[in-house]
């Protein structure tokens, strides 16, 4: 059709039917055309802007349909999961739905409540009703809903209610490992324990640049064994009740790697609801509390004397007369009033004997040794809550004597356990860790602090002290099959500036299996009273049975094989062929 028309036009031009004044007409034509074009362009632009303007007016006039969507708080920071050494979850982030309402849009509050209560039977009727009636823009109805509840409520189809997702930190074990895991604040930032450590390791930096996304964070594995941790906490909490103590605690350390398998301190808190976590008496006593550890320190005094090479297990110490120095008189609690051999000094826990042992190396040697054992310096570990031990500024004779039996200096129970592990494992001091560590890694950081021989002698003394029937103070810590060896410590507490004889701080440090130690267990109990219907509140009556309980219940988890072959034999005779 178009082609025909074009052809006709061409024919007209050729035959000259077209007007003669074509030039003039052409001019006119082009002028008209230009004007037409301008008009068209103007019309186009007016049209487009008219539509845009009209649309704007339309949107401006329209009712707000999207409405108020509640507070648009910052999306909570993600944190990595924390797992125990077997992969059990200790802490995790969970998303919970929180239900809110926009009362202005609620058509019928009564109906809404009725429907909601079918899913949430524990909804507070009165409160919810007044909230829904209030006519405000936004009101929380219930926080922390499960996905099932969320989908059920969604299925109800109530207008004017909605959900917001919130991320919250959840600790399935509750208070089980509270002091190790620590706490997060409302912004999901770690403020205590391993949570704080994780933040310090770069998580907070990652978060600042917006890279901490929950999927990209690898879970953090701890050296803790949840099962052992539960046993330890259970024993600690029970002991605290049983002996009406103000506090108790315990720790289990692997002597070869320095890994902390479990650590508990009571009273503790529930990290899911940490209203009392910052109370003064809820601190982690194992690492953040310093105590005069009492006779457990005699292990170190004895090891020091043996390591000096000036005495051996056959040496004797005169414990017939109390030592008087200045106004103080040092007496023995289980006084024998005779000359004691070194093992006797240890198992009768003789203060006089220990003081004489310390005398062998002198004051400076004594101080240097305790520093070497790491008992007087601030411990280096992942937990941020670590207290600095206290020692006299200037060591005098009297300090050396009292420190020999554990008074006059204060250190943390965890450090004492680490020191004891060094005495048991062949003399290697390994800083404790809450993260998994292999023996090879541990050997790299280990420091040889006493000789292999001293360690062997200490194992012998520990074993002797816990042998049933040896008269040792630790016999109540013995567990059939698991060869426990250890040392009690009963320290008198300072009340009004004086050592009180009936307010005590008790400890027991034990290693098992003592013939080839794998683990060191240390228990403490603060101000225990005698058990109902029994007398005696020294460490042998409370701290030692705690150790026995822990070992009995957790040895199989720790992979220690029971062995009854050596049960019949008593500690080997003290014969040393090297002499």
């Amino acid at each position, binding site marked *: 059709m178009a082609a025909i028309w074009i052809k006709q036009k061409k024919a007209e031009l050729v035959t000259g039917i077209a007007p003669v004044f074509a030039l003039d007409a052409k001019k006119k034509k082009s002028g008209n055309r230009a004007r037409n074009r301008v008009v068209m362009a103007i019309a186009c632009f007016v049209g487009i802007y008219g539509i845009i303007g009209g649309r704007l007016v339309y949107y401006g006039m329209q009712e707000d349909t999207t409405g108020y969507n509640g507070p648009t708080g910052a999306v909570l920071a993600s944190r990595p999961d924390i797992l125990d050494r077997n992969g059990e979850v200790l802490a995790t*982030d969970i998303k919970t739905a929180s239900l809110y309402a926009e009362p202005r849009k609620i058509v019928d509050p009564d109906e809404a409540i009725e429907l909601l209560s079918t899913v949430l039977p524990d909804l507070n009727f009165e409160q919810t009703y007044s909230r829904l009636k209030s006519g405000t823009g936004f009101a929380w109805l219930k926080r922390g809903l499960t996905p099932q509840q969320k989908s059920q409520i969604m299925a109800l189809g109530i207008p004017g209610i909605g959900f917001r997702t919130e991320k919250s930190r*959840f600790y399935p074990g509750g208070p089980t490992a509270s002091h190790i895991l620590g706490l997060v604040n409302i912004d999901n930032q770690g403020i205590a324990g391993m949570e704080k450590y994780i933040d310090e390791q770069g998580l907070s930096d990652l978060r600042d640049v917006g890279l901490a996304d929950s999927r990209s964070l690898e879970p953090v594995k701890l050296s803790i064994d949840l099962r052992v941790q539960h046993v330890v906490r*259970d024993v600690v909490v029970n002991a605290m009740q049983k002996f009406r103590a103000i506090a108790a605690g315990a720790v289990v350390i692997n002597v070869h790697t320095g890994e902390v398998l479990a650590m508990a301190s009571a009273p503790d808190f529930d990290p899911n609801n940490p209203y009392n976590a910052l109370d003064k008496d809820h601190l982690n006593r194992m690492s953040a509390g310093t105590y005069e550890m009492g006779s457990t320190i005699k292990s170190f005094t004895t090891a020091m004397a043996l390591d000096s090479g000036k005495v051996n297990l056959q040496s004797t110490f005169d414990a017939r007369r109390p030592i008087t120095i200045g106004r103080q008189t040092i007496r023995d609690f289980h006084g024998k009033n005779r000359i004691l051999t070194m093992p006797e000094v240890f198992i009768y826990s003789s203060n006089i004997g220990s003081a004489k042992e310390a005398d062998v190396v002198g004051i400076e040697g004594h101080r240097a040794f305790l520093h070497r054992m790491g008992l007087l310096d601030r411990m280096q570990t992942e937990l941020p809550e670590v207290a600095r031990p206290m020692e006299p500024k200037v060591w005098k004779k009297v300090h050396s004597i009292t420190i020999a039996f554990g008074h006059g200096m204060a250190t943390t129970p965890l450090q004492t356990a680490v020191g004891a592990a060094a005495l048991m494992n062949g003399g290697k001091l390994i800083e404790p860790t809450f993260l998994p560590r292999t023996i090879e890694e541990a050997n790299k950081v280990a420091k040889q602090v006493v000789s292999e021989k001293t360690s062997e002698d200490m194992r012998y003394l520990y074993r002797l002290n816990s042998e049933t029937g040896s008269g040792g103070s630790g016999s109540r810590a013995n567990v059939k099959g698991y060869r426990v060896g250890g040392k009690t410590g009963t320290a008198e507490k300072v009340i009004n500036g004086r050592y009180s004889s009936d307010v005590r701080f008790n400890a027991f440090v034990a290693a098992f299996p003592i013939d080839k130690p794998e683990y060191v267990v240390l228990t403490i109990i603060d101000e225990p009273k005698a058990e109902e219907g029994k007398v005696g509140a020294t460490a042998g009556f409370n701290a030692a049975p705690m150790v026995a309980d822990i070992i009995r219940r957790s040895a199989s988890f720790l992979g220690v094989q029971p062995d009854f072959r050596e049960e019949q034999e008593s500690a080997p005779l003290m014969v040393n062929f090297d002499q």
Partner: protein
Amino acid sequence: MLRTFDIILIGLMILAAAVTYKIKHDAEKQMTQVTRLQRMITDERDTIDLLKADWSLLTQPNRLQKLVETFQGQLDLQQVEAQQIININELPQPKPVSQDLDDVANIITEANAGEKIKPDTTMTGSINKPKAAPKPPKRIVPIAAPKAVGLY
């Protein structure tokens, strides 16, 4: 001639526009689908996280111990003592199954006194054991101590 070409070009343009529109529309549809699937994946992941938390809550040693204490009457679980744990190679060797004829075989032999009967070499658990091999002492051999038992 020019006009024909123009019209072809216009046609092509419209076609191209239509195809582009369709592709874009399809892509948008696919994107919606992708977003929907991504949202579903996120939902599933969140549910997995939650279920994991739920699982660890339900298997807390703490909770299991409480349950064991509550239902001690029915369960009658005891604490595992060191004596109950032994190595597999510490178990006493079970006696080799006796090759003697058993009662049934004897009766049959008596009945067919004349013929020689060969005892069947196949042994089933019910034939020989109670008489010939005394039961090895019954001991619990938890190679890995079961959780619920050890907790208590």
